């Protein structure tokens, strides 16, 4: 009798749990490939690396790195457009911030389910652990993900499988349930012990998950974006810019994005054709993008604020170059705003 090697796709975030979950299934002789969904909100080393001070940190994509450690292929899927509906209209609501974790996990498992149908794979693996996350990884919500994604009993959570009803791969004997695990709760000790057993010494342990929407400060800027525009919409450039610079909204109808160092300067300069901008010329200073429709008075106000963050903050006058969205530039001279006049509630 010829036995067919079963094939599974593992959702790979780049963290430890998905690494271990995939490995546990590979250990049972299953062919595993990885899948990673790029939503635009993913926390990547590169985003942090925009800032020069972080340049010593390795610029690696953890999902790719995990796949390489496992020796498996990784399929990275751009879901930016489809994901908007999850962020804008989450049927299960948001978590502590703007994170729609339950809808997000359901969406990703649904996409993986479509993928296995299209590619002739047998089942799906995730690194979920009961009780680890307050929204998506609870005993009562894990069946919701399996049901709403359509994956049903093709969804295997190897790290906590023994706490859950047997899935089809377990019932069919493709996986030995006894060799899967019974992890639960927020403790990381069982995962660390398993990592050691498998010989993984270096792995990513993101403190706040792998998504910017779980971050309080990022979420605040995201909500501000919607409030200012009067509609719940976004484009990729919008959400990328929320990751960079100092965001100051001195008036409801415009905000200033001020770079904090050279790396952010370089990044923001790529947007100078999309936004009006200010750059100090008499003193070293930041590049600032102006988001909104600005009057001459607004530009003057913005220039005074930008000058405050330049080397000329104590000078009587600072010269800046203002460039409109039309690409036309002009020089202007302003008195830097004293720090005490940059109101606390302007900072987003």
């Amino acid at each position: 009798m010829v036995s067919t090697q079963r094939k599974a796709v593992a959702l790979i975030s780049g963290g430890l749990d998905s690494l271990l979950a995939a490995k546990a299934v590979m250990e049972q002789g299953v062919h595993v490939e990885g899948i990673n969904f790029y939503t635009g909100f993913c926390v990547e080393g590169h985003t942090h690396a925009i800032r020069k001070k972080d340049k010593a940190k390795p610029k690696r994509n953890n999902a790719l790195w995990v796949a390489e450690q496992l020796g498996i292929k990784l399929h990275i899927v751009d879901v930016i457009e489809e994901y908007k509906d999850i962020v804008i209209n989450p049927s299960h609501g948001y978590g502590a911030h703007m994170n729609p974790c339950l809808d997000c996990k359901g969406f990703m498992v649904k996409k993986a389910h479509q993928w296995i149908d299209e590619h002739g794979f047998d089942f799906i693996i995730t690194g979920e652990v009961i009780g680890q996350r307050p929204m998506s990884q609870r005993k009562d919500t894990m069946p919701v993900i399996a049901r709403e994604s359509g994956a049903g009993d093709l969804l295997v959570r190897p790290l906590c499988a023994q706490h859950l009803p047997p899935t089809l791969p377990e019932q069919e004997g493709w996986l030995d349930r006894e060799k899967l695990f019974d992890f639960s709760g927020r403790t990381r000790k069982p995962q660390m012990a398993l990592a050691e057993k498998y010989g993984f010494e270096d792995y990513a342990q993101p403190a706040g998950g792998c998504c910017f929407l779980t971050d309080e400060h990022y979420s605040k800027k995201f909500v501000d974006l919607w409030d200012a525009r009067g509609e719940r919409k976004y484009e990729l450039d919008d959400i990328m810019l929320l990751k960079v610079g100092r965001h100051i909204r001195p008036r409801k109808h415009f905000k200033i994005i001020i770079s904090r160092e050279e790396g952010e300067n370089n990044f923001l300069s790529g947007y100078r054709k999309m936004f009006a901008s200010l750059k100090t010329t008499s003193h070293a200073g930041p590049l600032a993008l102006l988001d909104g429709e600005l009057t001459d008075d607004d530009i003057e106000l913005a220039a005074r604020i930008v000058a405050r963050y330049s080397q000329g903050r104590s000078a009587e006058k600072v010269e800046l170059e203002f460039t409109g969205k039309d690409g036309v530039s002009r020089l202007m001279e302003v008195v830097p705003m004293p720090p005490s006049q940059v109101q606390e509630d302007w900072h987003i």
Partner: protein
Amino acid sequence: MSHYTLDAKRMMCPMPVIKTQDRVAELQVDDTLEVICTDPGALNDIPAWCRINGHEVVGSKEENGEVIITVKVGEE
């Protein structure tokens, strides 16, 4: 075998990897694809993606703020 170019400028990783992945899927074995990026992270990620998916990086350079990586398509 043919040579192609891919403009991935101003994209932050992993977008240059995704664009490379999708373009390579359309090419033939031994074709080469020159990917032009501005995110220096691509210097790590595109080679990593090539290693795990059976392709080869045959050239890599940085000039004028751009990172240019040439990928030779392998047998997947």
